[in-house]
């Protein structure tokens, strides 16, 4: 291999460094800016193994705290993956609970159940897949196929 003259070598180094910098900045922006929707719900177990909280103030990170009453579900939109979840039951004397948790990078929506969390049921969070418009349409179509709408003048086997 022939030796590069110092000027070309320097230029190459600078360019390579800029290229690396570009990717590093992009990755950092990506990781810290990645948005996640965290659905918080306060529902009792249908089987009755744990109850819903009578009322609680929930906050995630620096987001504005929200109040949850039994059966409530609401969402927080957060940036980044590591978050601190704080649940403060409204009942007097009840203990506040603070947990740190991590959302996987690829996950768009996470469902956190504060009733499970406070009752100590693991896992208290799970991946949530929102039905897309197409899926909903497909569901509707399937439902329609099961109970066809009877229209006037439709004859068929």
């Amino acid at each position, binding site marked *: 291999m022939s030796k590069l003259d110092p000027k070309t070598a320097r230029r190459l180094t600078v360019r390579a460094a800029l290229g690396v910098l570009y990717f590093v900045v*992009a990755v950092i*922006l990506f990781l810290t800016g*990645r948005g996640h929707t965290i659905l918080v719900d306060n529902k009792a177990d249908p089987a009755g193994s744990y109850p819903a909280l009578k009322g609680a103030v929930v906050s995630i990170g620096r987001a504005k705290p929200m109040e949850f009453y039994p059966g409530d579900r609401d969402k927080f939109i957060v940036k980044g993956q590591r978050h601190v979840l704080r649940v403060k039951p409204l009942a007097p004397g009840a203990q506040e609970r603070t947990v740190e948790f991590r959302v996987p990078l690829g996950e768009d929506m996470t469902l956190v159940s504060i009733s499970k969390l406070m009752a100590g049921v693991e896992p208290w969070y799970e991946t949530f897949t929102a039905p897309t418009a197409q899926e909903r349409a497909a569901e509707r179509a399937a439902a329609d196929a099961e109970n066809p709408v009877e229209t006037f003048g439709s004859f068929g086997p």
Partner: protein
Amino acid sequence: MSKTIDVRKILADNLVVVIFLVITAFAVPVSGLSAQFIIQELLTRIGRNAFLVFSLLLPIMAGMGINFGMVLGAMAGEIGLIVAVDWGILGVNGLALAALVGMPVAVLLGWLAGEVLNRARGREMVTGYILGFFMDGVYQLIVLYMMGSIIPIRSPAITLSRGYGIRNTLGLDSVRQSLDTLLAVRVGPYVLPMATYVVIGLLCLFILWFRRTKLGQDMRAIGQDQGVSHSAGIAVERTRIIAIVISTVLAMIGQIIFLQNMGNMATYNAHKQTGFFAAAALLVGGASVSKATIPNVFIGVVLLHLMYIVMPRAGAQLFGQAQIGEFFRDALSYAAIAMALVIYAWRKRANADKARAGLRGGEAAGGAK
């Protein structure tokens, strides 16, 4: 005696500005809009548009006229935003990432535009304009047919129901006004998007600095005379390409700033008027096709947008039809561009005639183009 000639010259130099000022000064009171409303609108619109207008400065400096090909940069910015929204990157991070994604696209497109314009010397403006149309077709091909089929798109929410292609309107909720609200300062009844202003201020500094660099000097030299620059050892074609590349990249960032303020993106139309607005603003601000300064940008943005704010209302008050005001402002903006181009061409020809007359007179007036 010499003083009167000066006044006439100043008037002639700023004919477009003067006409615009007179018409707007007449329309503002007619519109009946409150000063507070108008000022707040202007403060917002300066943040929204100034960056885009700035992207036109360098090609003018390099003697390439108004870079109507800046819409290529706008398209690159839109592609960046589509990616940022699709990946779900929020806030300022999303904008920055959109700019980073748009950067290579803008550089590539700018380089392409520069190559094309180098082959169309003397008619850069019309070529740039048509290039914008052409690339709009390529943009549609990519965004409407390839995204979601060849280029992977994660979010079904932004694709058309047929499974590929981006929707006609892209909601930018995840990044909406994130730059404007990053550092919103209240002054009296007004809200100033300071972070946006800081970005624009940095750009001004960049342009001031750039003019002093070797490259900037070369660009100005080329703007003066390509032949002389070439014999002085300046790589004319390369420098012209660089001017267009920088312009395209700036337009890319400008479009991202513009769209974050709007909060919605008309995927297939957002860039169509970008070049027209930027050119109109700059020329209304007193710039010519061969000379444009930073004050021109600000004066132009304020004047043009003042007219855009008040004209529909003024039309409604005067004729009972807001539409007349809308047509009128469009006509006036187009006419402003036409007039500025005419004045420029007129003067260029007058100078050339003078130079030729000088040659005929036997004087050693070299460099008649």
